[in-house]
């Protein structure tokens, strides 16, 4: 639990962070809330030579709605999302996800930007940002670009971030119409991470499902969109039978399900189906 030597630099602006990143390249790591990076450093699994602490950049901490888009700054803490009146009203999936994330200390310090950039395969945020169809706004040496959440997560602890990039914000279209959402999770008894985590958002029109977003975390080496579930839901009446039928596709095409001491891949896939159905039922019940 003794990290290797590193330099620590605290920055006050995004520009400063980017220029330092450009200078130190792969030797540098961005420190956000620190709740993934620091444990890895203490175990010497990561040994960055330079830590660039962006915790003091005020311009990266916000939750706002502009022109039908919700923007969440990368340095917004889980707790801020959990308690955001705006999100509770317009996209309660995110606060509900935040309440199930880590413990009080983690929620007070950890950030959404740090979590998505770290890309732990059992983290909660990836499922939610995929479900709401978010874009991850990235800023780098060549300026800003937006990456669809579906394309952002590449593999275990690997994203499509390029050297010199940092996550600026998460943004997505505010749900419209009759919408119901839910996040359901089976917590690993040791780590508290998701054995499976299912994020659901449903839009209902004339008693039928007109659109849905289903994000799954914990099951595979990267979070994924359960496309077959979404396809099965399209136009369905959202009755118990059709929800169950749709949910049975939750782990379709997953060949690399995670197996560890607590749960094998087979069990994870089963849990994904059961909890997808339960999350769909909850979300359908909430769609008013």
């Amino acid at each position, binding site marked *: *639990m*003794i*990290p*290797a*030597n590193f330099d620590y630099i605290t920055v006050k602006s995004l520009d400063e962070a980017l220029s330092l990143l450009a200078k130190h390249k792969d030797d540098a790591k961005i420190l956000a809330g620190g709740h993934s990076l620091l444990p890895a450093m203490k*175990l*010497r699994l990561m040994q960055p030579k330079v830590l660039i602490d962006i915790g003091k950049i005020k311009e990266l901490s916000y939750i706002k709605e502009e022109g039908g888009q919700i923007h969440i700054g990368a340095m917004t803490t889980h707790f801020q999302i959990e308690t955001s009146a705006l999100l509770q009203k317009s996209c309660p999936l995110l606060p509900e996800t935040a309440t199930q994330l880590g413990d009080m200390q983690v929620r007070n310090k950890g950030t959404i930007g740090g979590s998505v950039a770290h890309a732990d395969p059992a983290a909660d945020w990836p499922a939610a940002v995929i479900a709401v169809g978010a874009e991850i706004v990235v800023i780098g040496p060549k300026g800003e670009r937006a990456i669809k959440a579906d394309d952002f997560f590449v593999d275990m602890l690997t994203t499509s971030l390029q050297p010199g990039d940092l996550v600026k914000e998460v943004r997505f279209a505010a749900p419209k119409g009759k919408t119901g959402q839910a996040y359901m999770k*089976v917590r*690993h*008894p*040791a*780590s*508290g*991470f998701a054995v499976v985590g299912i994020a659901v958002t449903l839009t209902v029109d004339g008693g039928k499902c007109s659109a849905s977003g289903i994000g799954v975390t914990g099951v595979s080496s990267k979070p994924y969109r359960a496309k077959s579930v979404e396809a099965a839901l399209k136009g369905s009446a959202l009755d118990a039978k059709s929800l169950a039928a749709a949910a049975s596709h939750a782990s379709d095409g997953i060949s690399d399900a995670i197996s*560890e*001491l*607590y*749960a*094998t891949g087979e*069990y994870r896939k*089963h*849990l994904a189906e*059961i909890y997808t159905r339960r999350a769909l039922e909850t979300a359908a019940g909430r769609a008013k």
Partner: protein
Amino acid sequence: MAEKVVGKGIKRTEDPRLIQGLAHYVDDIKLPDTLHAVFVRSIYAHARIKKVDVAAAQKTPGVVAVYTGKDISQKIGPVPCGAAIPDMKQPDHRVMATDKVYWVGHPIAVVFAENKYVARDAADKIEVDYEELPVVLDEEKAADPKSPVIHEKIGSNIAYKLTAGEGDIEAALKAADKIVRQKIYHKRLAPIAMEGRGVLARYYPGEQELTLWTSTQIPHLARTQISLMLGFPENKLRLIAPEVGGGFGSKLNVYAEEAIMAYASMQLGRPVKWIEGRRENMQGTIHGRGQVGYIEIGCKKDGTITGFRYNVFADMGSYFQLLTPAIPTLTGLMLSGCYKIPAIQMNVTACFTNKMSTDAYRGAGRPEATYVIERAMDLVAAELGMDVVEVRRKNFPEPFGAENPFKVATGLFYDSGNYQGALDKALKMADYTNLRVEQKKARAAGRLIGVGVSTYVEICAMGPSPALPAGGWESATVRIEPTCKVTILTGASPHGQGQETSFSQIAADELGVTVNDCTVIHGDTAVVQYGIGTFGSRATAVGGTAVYLALQKLKAKATGMAAHMLGVDAKTVTFDDGKFTSGGKSVTIQEVALNAHLAKNLPADMEPGLSATTFFEPKNFTFPFGTHICVVEIDPETGEIQIQRYIAVDDCGKVINPLLVHGQIHGGIVQSLGQALFEEVVYDEQGQLISGSLMDYAVPKAAQVPWMELDRTETPSPVNPMGVKGVGEAGSIGATPAIVAAVVDALAHLGVRHLDMPIKPEHVWNILKKNKAGAA
């Protein structure tokens, strides 16, 4: 008149410093010029060491010294084992590996540097060439003559074989109408004290004084053993256990690192400190449990038990620590549970494996005993179609006490008990009859509800000296200072149990002072008279009794002094509420205290001062007992287990502080819950520890712990004058079988009779899936 405080649930006097972060653990003690130590540990479970290259580490700026096993293992005596079993094979356990490594975590080298960062960087530069050897991991397969041998000099992996018990087991099993058999696992557990181990050593060459701060449960025993390891005079070695952040048995030990730090501080002429990391803690601090056994229980058709046999393979790990080989013998002592069983036999085969040593972990051998006899009673009930409560009741002894102790076929005499009383109370709290009705209804509706009952008895207050390797007595000195403040020095070494509070309660009542007038000092061998320590639920029953008896001596002297001050015969003096009274005249204990120290008005034959010391030797162990009832509901789709209710009625004899008793029961039940559902130290086929962090090893968190409905009965122990029994391990002994039984019961209609711990949801799901497939 001041209210008596014994029996009152007053808050712990320890808590403010703990809650505010003001306590001093080993790592909080900072000495100037301290060197910091980091160990290099084996990454293989079994390998020959071909070469250890420390050159780069030695050259690292800030590194003061690097020791390998070859450098120091012959300069320090072997790591001690205090237990002896007839014909036991004991490997020579040196403080560091020399030619071979025996488990993942075996220390190979240690770096001392100006700070821990430099020490760790240098440790990373040490290169070890290994030649891997075949590993031995399974305690049952280890006994096979075809298995690779770990200790070549011993020639086999069998540490010892032992048969224990009384009665004719063959005849008893022959006389049975039915015999039920089951293989049962007790997986290895990691104790996970919140504070890991830590050592700080300082040597003053002028005074030739060596001081060792170490996180231990046994400061005096550790001092004796470390002085022997170092060949250093015991009376020049001061060992201090400062605040200790939990032990659970893991610090009832003497470890290599303690002696190495002491040795290094003398060699290097500077204080040295080593603070264990959590991964090190999981690799290199003792584990608990580690048995696999086969039970055979014979019964009559009416549920009467005729005999019980337990054939067990016990996993020792690769070396003995302080009590490693003794732990299975404690299992053997408690196999009768709270039942009349005419014949009992335990056959132990204790084996070496390429893993960390096992040793005492909360309960230490007794949870295994309680678990197997309680599982056996449930299996008998299932076999005979009886209710689990009735089969227990059938075999209970009548209530017993000093006049008629309960003799069991393991050789013990239980001191006192009323098993029916605790059972009845728990059944009433649970509304057991109704629970069974509800269970039936729920089952019909497709819900899986299970009820588990455990009636346990445990052995506490370790214990009579003949039964313990290093004495089973405990000491106390009580001093009344000139200002009538009371100082209690106890040889016990509480580390979270709260005896600073409960011993003060005893003294406050006996002397008519307040709890705040009393202070309890422990853990410093230069201050406190020799003592044994805190383990085996002994601190109150043995150490508290020593305090009580010292107080009686003190009161007798004070009464004589008061009589002299009053000019009356001591026989006429009564003492109550801090006042000595005779014939209308009185003198307060404060006046007596001052007089004792001014010494101007003492009886001719009386020494000045008010201090008394007692060494209390108990005549027997004590045997707390109780009934735990657990209600679970299983998710039929996923196998997930939810504890709906948890009821515990415990009887630990007379209670000094019910709040402390509840705290101990709570903590014990939580550790049982961990064992039953979550915890398991797992080594893979190569002997790699794959449950090596708290991300994988699931210690229960607050949110996973159910509400507990607690009550108690009070059957005083005749073994000591206060009638106390001990409660430190009850929860970790009584609860595990209740939780497992509840899960099994929820699946009983599917033909399930036993499940091994930890019961994971996936396993339950596999059973449900198989059943569904069978039904379809």
